[in-house]
């Protein structure tokens, strides 16, 4: 069955809002479901996700594939993800260009990769394997970062472009993450945008960061900041009015407030081409 199309500006589904959404069925263009919260087959959590997917177009977004790790893939994780996808019929599945596991330990946090030719080869092979396991093309997201490795010989935009090209996957461009990393590593975010090939980008993320003085921290706990709205406008002009999603994970606001933030993104779509 062809998934419902993802158009316009959606929101991330958060547990606090599920009952309200199911009861009121407000007009929401689409919802992003955090796969990792719904991976127990036959659980009540999955029932909620399935019910949401019956009423709204959805995508699945995860943090647990550990695409950049060197330890073997967790097969159970992929099996459950595939099963969930069979039930939700998402337009696509995304995860991050990063790693979350090593040594048998799992960080549950998105850790950056060293940007080298060797890492490209490794990650490309991993993404291909993940795509085979899930029987679909993946969408990979740029993470925000707070460190750069001595080993790195490439910029992040060179790295992500090469990976997407060679792995034949799509890119979820997180505009806030670009801004956060640009500040933290002192590069020009516009240069980043201009270097990403237009045909690879499938979706945008927007979120709020926290200014820690010495660095910006990607907390997803605030409204989208003005400079990120500015960068988003440039992104729309370069890549077109692609589906956009507001992420909010801490200090989660009311559904109305969250939808108002998504509405701002819709307005940016309109004004970007005015």
């Amino acid at each position, binding site marked *: 069955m062809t998934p419902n199309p993802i158009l316009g500006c959606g929101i991330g589904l958060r547990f606090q809002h599920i009952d309200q959404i199911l009861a009121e069925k407000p007009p929401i263009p689409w919802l992003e479901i955090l796969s*990792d919260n719904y*991976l*127990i*087959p*036959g*659980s*009540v*959590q999955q*029932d*909620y996700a399935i019910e949401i997917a019956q009423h709204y177009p959805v995508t699945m977004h995860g943090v*647990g594939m*550990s695409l*950049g*790790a*060197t330890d073997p893939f*967790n097969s159970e*994780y992929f099996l459950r993800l595939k099963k969930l996808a069979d039930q939700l019929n998402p337009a696509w599945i995304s995860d991050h260009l990063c*790693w*979350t*596991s*090593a*040594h*048998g*330990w*799992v*960080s*549950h*946090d998105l*850790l950056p*990769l*060293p940007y080298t030719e*060797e*890492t490209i080869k*490794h990650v490309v092979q991993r993404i291909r394997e993940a795509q085979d396991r899930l029987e679909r093309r993946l969408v990979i997201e740029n993470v925000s970062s*707070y*460190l*750069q*490795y*001595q*080993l*790195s010989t490439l910029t992040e935009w060179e790295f992500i472009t090469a990976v997407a090209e060679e792995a034949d996957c799509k890119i979820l461009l997180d505009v806030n993450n670009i801004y956060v990393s640009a500040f933290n*590593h*002192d590069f020009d975010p516009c240069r980043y945008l201009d270097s990403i090939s237009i045909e690879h980008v499938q979706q945008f993320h927007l979120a709020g960061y926290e200014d820690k003085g*010495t*660095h910006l*921290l990607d907390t997803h706990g605030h409204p989208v900041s003005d400079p990120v709205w500015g960068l988003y406008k440039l992104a729309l002009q370069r890549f077109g009015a692609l589906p956009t999603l507001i992420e909010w994970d*801490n200090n989660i606001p009311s559904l109305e407030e969250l939808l108002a933030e998504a509405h701002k993104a819709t307005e940016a779509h309109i004004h970007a081409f005015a």
Partner: protein
Amino acid sequence: MPLLELQQSLISALFQRDQLAEAAKLVKAQGSLSSEQRVGIYRNSTHGILLDYLESLYPVCLDLVGTEFFGRTAHSFMDQAPPTSPFLADYGAGFVTYLAEHPALQDMLWIVEVAKLEWARHAAWHTVNQVASDFAQLEGLSAAQQAELRFQLPASAHLISSSTPIHSIWLAHQEEYPDKPRLEEIDLQEAQQVLIFREQRRLHQTTLSADDWAFLNTLQQQATMSELAEQFAEQLPWLFSVAMQEGWIYSFTTD
């Protein structure tokens, strides 16, 4: 340096503070932050994610011991037992044992009892759905088959027998509960038996009388109907009807 070694070094620093300096050697020093501080940001964010999660699992314990103590204990727990599964909901059962062994809690082990209750709530919520038996079928069974009947509680059921009134303490910390007891009025020496189970999208938590507790416990040990009749004698019909009415019995088997 191979990717494997780099990742092992960095993840070690996330869960072992004394590995920070080693991992920092992999990282460029930039601007006003040292490489060690940069690795430290990741240690903080990893710990922060797990702390938020543990706080969401154990909200009453958090209230009882305070944010400061809870945070310190949670951080040392994470370092001692880092997550090993990509399924976050699997993490945190060991926190109860960790609390039980904590020297500062040895005179307040009732707090650990509350932690057991909170883990049971989490586990019950995440238990997979099951199909209830059709109890109308009981009517068609022969007397011999009836004697061999065994009954099951919902798969999500947790029976907890505690030397402390965990249900009352838990209630005292529920904001939305109108007639909640006040913590200072609760007698911490009072024992309580508690049942937790999930019924579709509702989590039930209730105290049990000594009789109901004994009955459900015997059921859970897979006693047959004839064994139940022997143990509970004339009380059995009453115990049974209460358990059925409350949804404590979910299925039966005849073999």
